[in-house]
């Protein structure tokens, strides 16, 4: 598993604290190749000042571009949170599992940036998430499918072998 991000504003050399508590609910989801999974969550301002939410970054184990669509976040996130204010739960992003994605556990980190004004880009907080990509079930055979010539040849060879054994 890969985890990913840090969300600390350094207060001192030895002390660090998050500005936003970023909570994904759930943070772990299962899906099949080709399936889209939407991650939702909440933001909570842990400081006694207003925090502007200006940007987000993400890193995701799946390489395919577009496998994580973060357009939901800025569309849904509040522009700012007052002191100690918490947001309602809203959709953060969508994971689009590529159709040929190999089964496995894929991790990511979703980072929120902003700060004291609408231009700030400080790291405010982050949350990790995981996507378990499962193997798709094998498709059942079709009812009207015609065997290929090689299949017929193999069947004929088998039948010939049976006849030869009986004659002996």
């Amino acid at each position, binding site marked *: 598993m*890969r*985890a990913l*991000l840090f969300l600390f504003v350094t207060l001192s050399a030895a*002390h660090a604290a998050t500005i936003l508590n970023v909570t994904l609910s759930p943070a772990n989801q299962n899906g099949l190749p080709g399936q889209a999974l939407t991650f939702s969550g909440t933001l909570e301002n842990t400081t006694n000042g207003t925090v502007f939410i200006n*940007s987000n970054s*993400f890193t995701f184990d799946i390489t395919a571009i577009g496998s994580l669509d973060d357009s939901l976040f*800025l569309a849904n996130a509040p522009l700012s949170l007052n002191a100690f204010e918490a947001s309602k739960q809203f959709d953060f992003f969508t994971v689009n599992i590529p159709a040929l994605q190999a089964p496995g556990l894929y991790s990511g980190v979703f980072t929120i940036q902003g700060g004291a004004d609408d231009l700030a880009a400080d790291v405010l907080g982050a949350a990790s998430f995981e996507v378990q990509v499962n193997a798709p079930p094998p498709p059942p055979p079709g009812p009207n499918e015609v065997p290929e010539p090689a299949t017929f040849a193999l069947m004929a060879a088998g039948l010939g072998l049976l006849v030869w054994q009986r004659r002996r």
Partner: protein
Amino acid sequence: MRKIFLAIFVILSSAGFLSYRASSLGPTGCKNGCFTNVTYTAYNLTLPINKWVEYCSLTPVPGRGIACAQVSSEADYASCVSGFCPFLAPFMDQVKNYECLTCLTTPVAGEARLNRIFKCSATYISDDARSCQYPSPQSLTVLADNSATFKASIGSPSDNVPVQWQSSTDNGLNFSPTPGGNSPAYTFQAAPALDGNRYRATVLFGNVRIPTAAASLTVRSATLPASRLLVSNGASYGMVEQYDATNGLFSSNVLPVDVPQGILVNPADGTLLVASAKDNQVLKVDGQTGAPLGVFVNGATACGGSTLNGPTGIVLGPAPSRHLYVVDKGNNRVVEYDGLTGACLRTYASGSTLSQPHALAFASDGQLYVTNLTGTVARFNASGVADGAVSIGTAPAGIAISPLDGHLYIADRSAAGQVWKVATTNFLSATPTVFVPSPAGGLVNPDGLAFGPDNHLYVASTGTSQIRRFNGSTGALLSAFVDNQPAGLAPTFLTFTSPAAVTASAASATFSPNNQNVTLSATVSGPGGPLNQGFVVFSVVDNSGPVPAQIGATVGPIAVSNGSASTSFTLPGGTAAGSYSIRAAYSGTSIFRAANDNSRLLTVNKATPVLTWNNPASISFGSALSGSQLNATANVPGSFLYTPAAGTVLPAGNAQNLFVQFNPTNSQSYNATTASVQINVTAGGPATLISTSTLARQSGTNNVLVTVTIANTGGSPATGVQVASARIGSLSALTTLPLSVASIPAGGSSVVTLSFPSAVGSAGARAVLTLNGSFSGGSFGQSSRVVLP
């Protein structure tokens, strides 16, 4: 109207024929058939012999009844009557029992003789001759708004003679009935306006209401002294009186009691108990107002096989039972009663060691000492078993225990009165010593004695009508403390009552699920300073609920020493944090009144849970915090709130603080608390890319240039980084994409510049910048709210 006459005289010194009984209280009266206001003179009578005939003395004394005598011999009396008083024959039954008369011939001691003829007159009233002998009630001096009780000595208490009390507001010229005054004792609240009124009792005989002489009421506006000396005054018919214990000045009458004897203050409720030798009762009196509270011990009811016969000394036994012990003088025994109810318990002590017992006292060793007027002091153990007696003086009467040395102090009721002192240790072999000698002490027929609040000794000198005060340590005479009491003083027993104050000390403890010991203490003081007697009982009460609930067990009694009492209280485990009232109850003594204090608190503070949290092992950068690191434990149930929370990815670095706030489930008794540890985050882990962008307007083209800083906050280098797409709003970058970026080392960053057409918007417009890319470990991206330059 019918007439009758009889005269009898008694020769005190004559021998043989007469049996004499003098009584200052007068006879109890005719039963029936007496006559009214008829006076006969010049009748000649011969003294009857051995008959129960009682007659008036020559000069009835107001308020004291009429001295009477009796002769006993039915035959002689009948002969007398038939021989000299033939008119009495039809009324023999009455005459032989009671009659009232006045002899006209002044009797002279030694002059009267058998068959001597006297000229007498008699006054017979209606059909009951008692009223002619009824004494006046005693005049009273009481404090304003306290209780006043006039008592007419009419018959015995069992007679329940119906009377009607009357009062006069004009110095006795006119009387009118008082409401509710229909019994021999008339009690009312002495309002100041009643000062100077006169009171008398009347008895209805036939159609005639016969009054007693009137008594006066004096209502004082003075307040009740804080410390009082209470005295059983046997003068006249008997009165309980109280004096200021600081100066001996008379305060007020408390209650008329016929032949008052032992007196004490019940520290349990502050009431007075006083024995009446005539009525064979122990009466209960309100200790503050003097209001009679009824008969506490009715000696007419047998207890231990006998009725009381002349009770004298009384005392309360040791705590905690505090039973009442009464000297039953006529039966040579000590009787035990319940100290709270007066209910009969048993004959406590009897036998040959008691001979005319008079007074008694419990020493600190729990043994009872009883004076015998025959010259000894007997000792009984806690079971009432006598273990011997010691000869002391000639007539040991009053007895007291010194608060200074614990020794016995005994008044010798002889004409040359003195006070003896003897130790209780090795009592039977101890040698009594004279503490107050005669005649230096000035005591004549001393009776009761008591140590006062000042620890000095006060002795009732009956023969001198005084209460004399002696140094409690040396026996030196200090003063005639009470002297020249105008209404007459014949003190028998005395006691003190004085206020005491008890103050508990605040205490504290810390909540614990287990029992714990808490020290409770209190100070006890009287008017003169710290006390050295009595006991304190401690308890702890929870007053937070609708009904007070006691916490733990009552502790005590704890002896007061040098003004303080201290003990260890077991606070039950699990007693919730909060404030509880400490109740310190001072027992009181024969001198000092009981007192209570519940003003102090036992504060049980919240306990602080013990958190256990060790520095966790180092983790690699990129590893989110989990229960492996956030694993604090507490010794009580509760919840943990960690900062940073689980799932947080810390930056690489050493000695980074992790905090936890613990909120106990039992928040009433436990504090919330915090703890912290430190963790080292080592470099390593995957690459993590975070992008930030700055925008500028390109001069000339007016295109928008976006400078993207891609920072690798992970622990591994990011290779193969390339920006795959970028747009502002719906317009893509002019820059050819994908755009490769050099590898970004861990902790490093790279910058790329992307150009967007000017059509993305005018300066100041808001838009969303979207960036996507990939690297060897995955994909990355960014969306930002931007303000176009």
